[in-house]
């Protein structure tokens, strides 16, 4: 009688199915289980009583594919223990957990999240922006506390139409944000590593100049060595006292200590944040502010995005094991 073990499938089938190593379950597995990967033999490292290096030495020497969530750093040390690795499939929109130069050096392909999440993340960015400008969360708290009466006026918000919105990073997510905000009458501009052809929004070659000409900055780029703390005190001061920052990228793109100071000293008007430098820790000064909106890193946490990601992951693995092109290969590292 075959019993399930930490190798993920019944023993008598294990030789037929291509192996996929999973060091830690990605959110899609936590929410939806692993039925969508029934065509593969999953090597679930976290279920084994063995320490990771031993597990990998015993079970992962011929493994070619790895499925990984965003929070698990894939470093040189781990790669050394998976010598046959040819593909990593990540369920995260960001790639900052992957030592990209090392992967390139070893010729390991990377399948990214593609644009599976882009709409939901863009929706979060716009939702946070409207919330900050129009004080939606603050007003909701006000009503629920029983503070609404006709004598005292709830503080006025700020109009979204005609605001100059600087998008930092015009990838798939940035473009979805731009498309949405144009419909609200915002004036969209952007900065990016390279100017995008066929894009009509004004391009700025650096974020400081973009900030100086913007009322709002929306962080839509990935976290790299170049973008770490890119949104620093100078950028925030350039954005100005009426300025609003929205971050749906990675916490470390913004110098969080400086952000808090700017908000405390009213050098910035407000912020909408889905990501932080040390999640789930949020600077305690922000917890008391009415002009910030806080979100616990959940821009992609909808059933629609996650079920689409299950299909996307399956599609990439199927493509790889049938020697077909990946659905969402990462190029130009």
């Amino acid at each position, binding site marked *: 009688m075959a019993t399930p073990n930490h190798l993920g499938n019944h023993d008598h089938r294990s030789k037929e199915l291509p192996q996929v190593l999973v060091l830690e379950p990605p959110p899609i597995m936590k929410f939806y289980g692993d039925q969508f990967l029934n065509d593969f033999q999953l090597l679930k490292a976290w279920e084994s009583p063995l320490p990771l290096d031993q597990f990998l030495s015993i079970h992962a020497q011929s493994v070619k594919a790895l499925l990984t969530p965003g929070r698990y750093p894939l470093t040189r040390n781990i790669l050394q223990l998976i010598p046959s690795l040819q593909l990593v499939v990540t369920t995260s929109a960001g790639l900052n957990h992957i030592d990209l130069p090392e992967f390139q050096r070893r010729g390991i392909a990377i399948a990214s999240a593609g644009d599976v999440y882009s709409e939901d993340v*863009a929706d979060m960015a716009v*939702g946070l922006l409207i*919330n900050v400008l*129009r004080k939606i969360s603050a007003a909701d708290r006000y009503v629920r506390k029983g503070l609404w009466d006709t004598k005292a006026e709830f503080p006025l918000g*700020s*109009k979204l139409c005609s605001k100059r919105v600087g998008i930092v990073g015009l990838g798939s997510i940035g473009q979805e944000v731009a498309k949405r905000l144009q419909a609200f009458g915002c004036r969209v501009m952007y900065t990016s590593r390279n100017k995008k052809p066929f894009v009509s929004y004004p391009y700025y070659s650096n974020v400081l100049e973009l900030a100086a000409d913007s009322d709002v900055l929306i962080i839509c780029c990935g976290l790299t060595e170049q973008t770490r703390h890119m949104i620093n005190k100078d950028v925030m001061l350039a954005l100005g006292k009426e300025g609003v920052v929205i971050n749906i990228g990675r916490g470390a793109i913004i110098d969080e200590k400086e952000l808090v100071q700017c908000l405390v000293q009213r050098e910035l008007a407000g912020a909408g944040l889905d990501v932080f430098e040390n999640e789930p820790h949020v600077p305690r000064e922000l917890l008391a502010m009415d002009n910030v909106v*806080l979100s*616990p890193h*959940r821009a992609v946490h*909808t059933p629609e995005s996650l079920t689409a990601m299950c299909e996307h992951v399956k599609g990439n693995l199927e493509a790889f094991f049938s020697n077909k092109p990946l659905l969402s290969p990462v190029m130009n590292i």
Partner: protein
Amino acid sequence: MESICVLMPIPMNSYLEQELQKRFNLLKLWTAPQKPQFIKEHADSIRAVVGNSAAGADAELIEALPRLEIVSSFSVGVDKINLAKCREKGIRVTNTPDVLTEDVADLAIGLMLAVLRRLCESDRYVRSGKWKRGDYKLTTKFSGKTVGIIGLGRIGMAVAKRAEAFNCPICYYSRTEKSDTKYKYYPSVVELASNCQILVVACPLTEETRHIVNREVMNALGPKGVLINIGRGPHVDEPELVSALIEGRLGGAGLDVYEHEPEVPEELFGLENVVLLPHVGSATVETRKEMADLVLGNLEAHFSNKPLLTPLV
């Protein structure tokens, strides 16, 4: 014009009050210890009333002011003004259309995103420290959901235009089908509610549209449906709304208006699928100034015998 008496029933905007005080003799009814007495004392000199969405000019007030010539509303909705009586007595009425269209439409979309993505609830989650113990749950995607609009006027069209940028299919109900639009028309609100996931109230409040969103409509919208009210509280049968939400027959609601403002049914305070705003549809610094300037402009035009800027009557 400093001697012309203008009555303002409740406070609404300090810039507007200051400017009215500069140009006219502004009478602030809310400061009077005895309101009916105050009205009697000034009845012969009040020539204008400045109202808003909360207080306008009903039949009783109009009858009490024999020299009333114009009611200028600091709002686009004029359900608090007895238009028939104004017409009967030749009293002009103005409102503030267009200048607030974008703000109200922005707020409608803001409410949709806040309800569907639980932005207020997850903000509370972070502030209470719960994130340290675990992730917030899944919430539903907004992009691509079908949006049904009751009333395809200026505000309804602005909501549609924004929702389209999120790839939302748009459908609507209106008194008559519009020939110049590509959006799908439904001849009744119940049919509209049956065929959309987010229902937005964007029509004026009249006798016909009172309780236009009733129990049947809410049941049709359903346990996954979301109601967004940026019109007037009485558009929605409020007790029915409360029970529909509590019983799970309606999936969620984003409300900017209520039947008896500033009262909000307290049963709603404990619900996480509801966002409650204190009637802030046009409440931005920029728009309130534009609205105030329209009120002032209309009054000045009237009292200089020039054409009104935004007359309704």
